[in-house]
């Protein structure tokens, strides 16, 4: 197990190094540099201003030189400064990361809380009206465009009923209740879309698990319907769901651009989008690397979860391969 973890850690380092170079190259290849963008927004800038600013921001230096300079300081824990926000990159990312974790974590929890029981219920009544209704709801949830769902919820709960705020972070003076009210609509938007996906995955896996021999044996031995579902079938059926949930772990930190934009929720998705469009290279690079790292971690968690759920999977053997 430890050899497997060491191997995965080394792989992660190699992937991150490659990603940092790839992302840096892709950002540098984007049309226009930060100074071009400044000039486009400020007609007072002269040729002398442009030249001075290119030197000041280092965009007149060759791409590889810039990358090596960044990598050198990053290895010492200094990830540079945000050009747009004029703050250290980690200082820019930290509050947005917290906002995103709060939003996406709550949405994931709610999605699982809705999706898993629905999946089990539908599988237990395969082919029935319940199954068909759940299926339809799941497809509708997964297929509904997020921005549209966000608008619908906003119009209903904020405009028509006036129960909840239409978006934004809670003001500093609002307490826990204020925070919950502000989170309700964006969390619901994300969760309703995700819940359908989890329910569909679990239903399919449960239907398969319920047809297996060990489940039939359990039934023959007189196990209750609930015990068969939750103890004998669910454990096997959770493997694909755990994989999907763990792979979505990276998404917890890279944010949800559309939902964040619709609800004016300053999170990582919006930050990454804005930093790429605004040529804020350091922020974009570090945020994308962070998302990569978390996706790798999610993949590792998926493997561990699968091994825990299915005794036939051995991480120790995987480490020896």
């Amino acid at each position, binding site marked *: 197990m430890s050899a497997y973890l060491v191997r995965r850690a080394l792989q992660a380092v190699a992937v991150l190094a490659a990603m940092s170079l790839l992302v840096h190259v892709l950002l540098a290849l984007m049309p226009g540099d930060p100074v071009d963008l400044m000039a486009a927004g400020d007609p007072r800038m002269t040729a002398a*201003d442009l030249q001075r600013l290119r030197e000041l921001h280092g965009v007149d230096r060759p791409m590889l030189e810039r990358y090596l300079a960044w990598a050198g300081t990053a290895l010492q824990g200094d990830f540079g400064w945000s050009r747009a926000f*004029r703050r250290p990159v980690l200082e820019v990312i930290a*509050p947005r990361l917290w906002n995103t974790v709060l939003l996406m974590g709550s949405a994931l929890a709610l999605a699982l809380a809705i999706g898993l029981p629905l999946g089990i219920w539908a599988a237990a009544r395969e082919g029935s009206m319940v199954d068909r209704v759940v299926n339809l709801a799941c497809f509708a949830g997964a297929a509904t465009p997020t*921005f549209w769902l966000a608008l619908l919820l906003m119009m209903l709960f904020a405009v028509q009923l006036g*129960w909840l705020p239409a978006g934004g972070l809670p003001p500093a003076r609002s307490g826990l*209740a204020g925070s919950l009210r502000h989170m309700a609509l964006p969390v619901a938007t994300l969760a309703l879309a995700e819940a359908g996906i989890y329910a569909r995955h679990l239903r399919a896996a449960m239907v398969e698990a319920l047809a297996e021999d060990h489940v039939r044996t359990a039934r023959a031995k007189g196990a209750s319907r609930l015990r068969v579902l939750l103890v004998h079938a669910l454990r096997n059926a959770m493997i694909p769901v755990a994989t999907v949930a763990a792979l979505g772990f990276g998404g917890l930190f890279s944010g949800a651009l559309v939902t964040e934009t619709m609800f004016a929720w300053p999170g990582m998705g919006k930050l990454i989008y804005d930093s790429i469009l605004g040529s804020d290279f350091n922020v974009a690079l570090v945020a994308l690397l962070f998302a990569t790292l978390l996706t790798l971690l999610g993949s590792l968690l998926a493997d561990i979860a699968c091994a825990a759920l299915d005794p036939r999977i051995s991480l120790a053997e995987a480490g020896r391969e």
Partner: protein
Amino acid sequence: MRRLYALVVAAIASIAAPLAGEAGRAAARDELSIGFTQYPSTLHPMIDSMAAKSYVLAMLRRPMTSWDASWTLRCEVCVELPTIANGLARAVERPDGTRGVAISLEIRPGLAWSDGVPVTSADAAFAIEVGRHPASGVAAQEFHRRVERVEIHDDRRITLHVDRLSYQYNDLGDLHLLPAHLERPVFQADPGAYRQRTLFDAEPTRPGLHFGPYRLAEVVAGSHLVLLPNPGWPGDRPHFRRITIRAIENTAALEANLLSGAIDYIAGELGLSLDQALAFQKRHGARFDIAFKPGLVYEHVDLNLDNPLLRDRRVRQALLAAIDREALSRQLFEGRQPVAHSFVNPLDRVADPGVQRHGFDPARAQALLDEAGFRAGADGIRADATGRRLSLELGTTAGNRSREAVQQVLQNQWRRVGVEVRIRNEPPRVFFGETMRRRAFPAMAMYAWISSPEGGPRNQLHSAAIPSAANAFAGQNYPGFADAELDGLVDALEVELDFERRKALWARIQAIYARELPALPLYFRADAFILPKWLAGIEPTGNQHPSSLRVEHWRARP
């Protein structure tokens, strides 16, 4: 079970409680929540230029001078606007024989930073020192570079010695005072790191950074800012005891926030586009006051004069005669955006009402194209004797619904006179950051300029402002327009102090522009201010200075 029920009731009550608070706030109407579509990435008054920052800072501080809603230049920080006539500005002979100007300023009495420290001449001198330092990060340094010397007479009186006497000598909108007592140590520690360490971004709520009617009390990056009255402000007392400015980028969400009462007002400077505002007016016009203010944003189609098809003036004139801009403005914008006949807004005192107007005249357009040698082919598209088709590409910023709608109308109208137009739009970043700056658009590009009242056209029309590798792609003369007479007029205009003579130069420039048509004028964009019926005192300016510059005059109607 009872305990569970009690818990649920308590939870609902705690969530509902803030609603009662909001209702109370609305009834008292001493708080205001404003929504706009952009969050300012910096709050430093001199680093980077963005509309959101200008809007917020206008409530916190003042530039030395500004253009008011009647487009009159006024002094904000000084006691009297310096002019040659009142003797506060005087022409001086420089050692090289050229004319400079000495501008005397007296800072208004009683002005103090929000920590109580008086605003002094040292703050103005420090601002200029920062503005001209090559490593300070100030993007446009032209104004500060031109200040050769700063003479401090006492705490409130100062003279700026500027190396050039231009007609805009007393437009000091680029001079933003900085609190020397707070910022000088940061700057002196390392001028090269100043842009990253400035307190305006490191500690934006620190008392003493601003001197306007309000001070910053809370900043949540990317989300909102909270402003409270500055007790040291010597001007009119502001009515609202708390202003929250929320950044909501998505305009549908912005509307929903307004309708739900989460925000009270959508700022016109950074709010709904005109078509969205018109649609909103139809649906909810009874609940809100909607003010439309045409301004200095000039929508037009640049023509790349390097394109052989567009080098012929007759083709350019035909393109303009073929489009019905009056109908376009009426049908798409309900006539709220006045048709442009030159780049000078009719509200500007130098606009020439007699400038040549190219009305909608398809017959004339056809005649001009015939004259230029383009005859209609079998498919209706014109071509010249060599078989060169009159086929042009029109680009604009992808995702801008108004522009895309206008594009469709133009394409259709040009097709009727035998001009084929292919649409190729790009994201704004690519369009402005690459295509326009490098003059890489093959034929036509639709976008807007923003200028200032009586703002000189050097950057857009002088041949020295044609972007090229030689000038590091500076300048915005994207059509590549080069006219010796116009260059001379722009040079002469800038140093002409007599208004009547200057107006004649402006008229000649507008005449050349209307004749040569390096760009096709479309319309002047209007901002839509969506106000609750109880809010009064907001006066849209239509110029580069936002309405928030007079925030102390905003009131709640009884």
